[in-house]
């Protein structure tokens, strides 16, 4: 099954998840994120109830599950954009539960949103520059001292332009972000999150609405990020994409993690097929067939 792997997928010889058992809540060899007992309910509905979850450093981990499984809510909780009813989690060994969203981002865990949040009346370049960390001119008093920050601003601008070029948005740098298409906004949001220089990015459906011609290059960016050492956790629905680039897959349904494993493990996992693949998707039907021929 590794024969159909896209260029970004790990070679047989470099399994980034070596030594990790493909089971729910399994311990990772070098976890960047560790979470325990995260719970969040809305009224009577338990949206998230994750007992234990670890994310391996410098890997691409996909978070999948049917709509309403609690993926976005889990993102919100982990990144400080929603308050958990219970749970403890740490990022790079540091407790970040109950930490405000902006502080979590400063720790190096940066997220994007399922519904894009482009800053519409700012230009594309301003969107990028805003995200640069540690700007001296960002302080109220510092703002008055132009000479204090023009150098830093120029350096940030250069980095922003490099990123924009990577995402093919450089020609649009002076357009207001509100004039971009939905897909371009997704790209901008991802590029912008990289301006923060995160050690982990959490992308909530980054491919949704992106021009199919761009999806392949977007995937290449994601694998390149991983190869540079960034950890990627992303939510996605396209099974080809997920199976193609993920080192590890976490499956959620009804708020719980119901399976974890390499793409091959997930394809053949009965829980997954029952709860998700078989029930809601056509493509994963292939997954079900492959299960019969399975290992």
């Amino acid at each position, binding site marked *: 099954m590794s024969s159909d792997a896209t260029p970004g997928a790990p070679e047989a010889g470099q399994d980034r998840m070596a030594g990790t058992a493909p089971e729910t809540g399994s311990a990772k060899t070098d976890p960047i994120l560790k979470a325990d007992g995260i719970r969040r309910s809305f009224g009577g509905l338990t949206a998230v109830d994750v007992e234990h979850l670890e994310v391996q450093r410098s890997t691409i981990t996909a978070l999948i599950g049917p709509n309403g499984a609690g993926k976005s809510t889990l993102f919100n909780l982990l*990144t400080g*954009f929603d308050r958990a009813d219970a749970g403890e989690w740490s990022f790079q060994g540091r407790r970040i539960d109950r930490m*405000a*969203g*902006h*502080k979590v*981002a*400063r720790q190096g865990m*940066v*997220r*994007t*949103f399922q519904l894009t*949040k*482009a*800053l*519409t*009346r*700012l230009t594309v370049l*301003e*969107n990028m*520059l*805003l*995200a640069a*960390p540690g*700007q*001296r*001119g*960002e*302080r*109220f008093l*510092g*703002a*008055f001292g*132009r000479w204090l*920050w023009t150098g830093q*601003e120029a350096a940030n601008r250069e980095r922003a332009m490099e990123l924009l070029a990577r995402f093919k948005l450089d020609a649009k740098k002076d357009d*207001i972000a*509100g*004039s971009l298409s939905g897909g371009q906004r997704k790209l901008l*949001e991802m590029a*912008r*999150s990289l*301006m*923060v220089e995160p050690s982990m990015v959490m992308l909530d459906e980054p491919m949704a609405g992106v021009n199919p011609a761009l999806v392949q290059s977007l995937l290449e960016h994601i694998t390149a990020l991983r190869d540079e050492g960034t950890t990627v956790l992303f939510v996605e629905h396209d099974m080809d994409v997920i199976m193609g680039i993920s080192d590890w897959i976490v499956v959620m349904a009804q708020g719980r993690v119901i399976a974890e494993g390499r793409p091959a493990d997930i394809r053949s996992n009965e829980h997954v097929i029952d709860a998700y693949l078989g029930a809601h998707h056509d493509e994963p039907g292939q997954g079900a067939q492959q299960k019969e021929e399975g290992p």
Partner: protein
Amino acid sequence: MDTMTILSLSVETAIGPVAAIYVLAAIGLNMHFGYTGLLNFGQVGFMLVGAYGVAVSVATFGLPLWMGFLVSLACSVVLALVLGIPTLRLRSDYLAISTIAVAEVLRLVYRAEFARPVTGGVYGRQSFADAFYDANPLPEGSLGVGRVDFSSDELWLMLVCWLLVAAGLAMMALLMNSPWGRVIKGIREDEDAVRSLGKDAFTYKLQSLVFGGVFGGLAGAMIALNQQNITPDQFMPQVTFYLWAMLLLGGVGTIWGPVIGPVIMWFMLTLFDETLRGMASTGVLPFLATSDSGPLRHALVGVGLMLLIVYRPQGLVGNRKEMLVNVK
């Protein structure tokens, strides 16, 4: 009442101290709403504490005028913190409700009987501005160009007000063209996005509220100097709504909007009032009493705002494309 007199009166009002004071307050409101997206419906509250900061310090406690100004600014800062700290973590409507309520409560407290030893209650405070006019370096008599002229004292106050406006605009321009201003505008667009990029939106919003509030306080202090007699009932909620109308007229989120708006609006209002008065006194409109001009003026402002929103939602100097970007 001939046309020239009406016109020159209108011009005098448009560039006079009162217009300049409204410009100051509108600059603050523009910081709040235009750049940060904060709904402040109580800018008049900042003006009130600013005016009383000067009046009470000097008239009640006998402090020098410059200390009165410091007290004004300190009161505005405190008011901003009191309004902002509990509400700025919540949805934006909480600030809106709090500002309108607190401004009105402040007025009632300042005019209350128990506050009378300090604020003078309903009678307010008088004779606290002498030091300001004693410092007037301009020659006595009236000065001006053609029919547009001002008394020496009026001109002195005007000068100071417009200098404050100039300083305020310079600061705004510096701020809004800096990374700080970028974060502020980002918050206006989407606060969560800004937080997700590691910026503490709450602190920025609080800074914006304080900074814009200080302009409100400064405007209040200048009202005190202008009138040399202040009472709480000058600080009715209408003042805030006039400010909003002026800001929308000029153009929100622009440097010059809060200047153009009040100037044009005061020009129009005076033109309207004086024309009406002229017509009433010459008996052209026998069914119209001079006392009708107040309600008619409000109606005019309302109609004007409606036309503005329909035909020029970005205001006189705003950017239409930006304004309509979220309208599908």
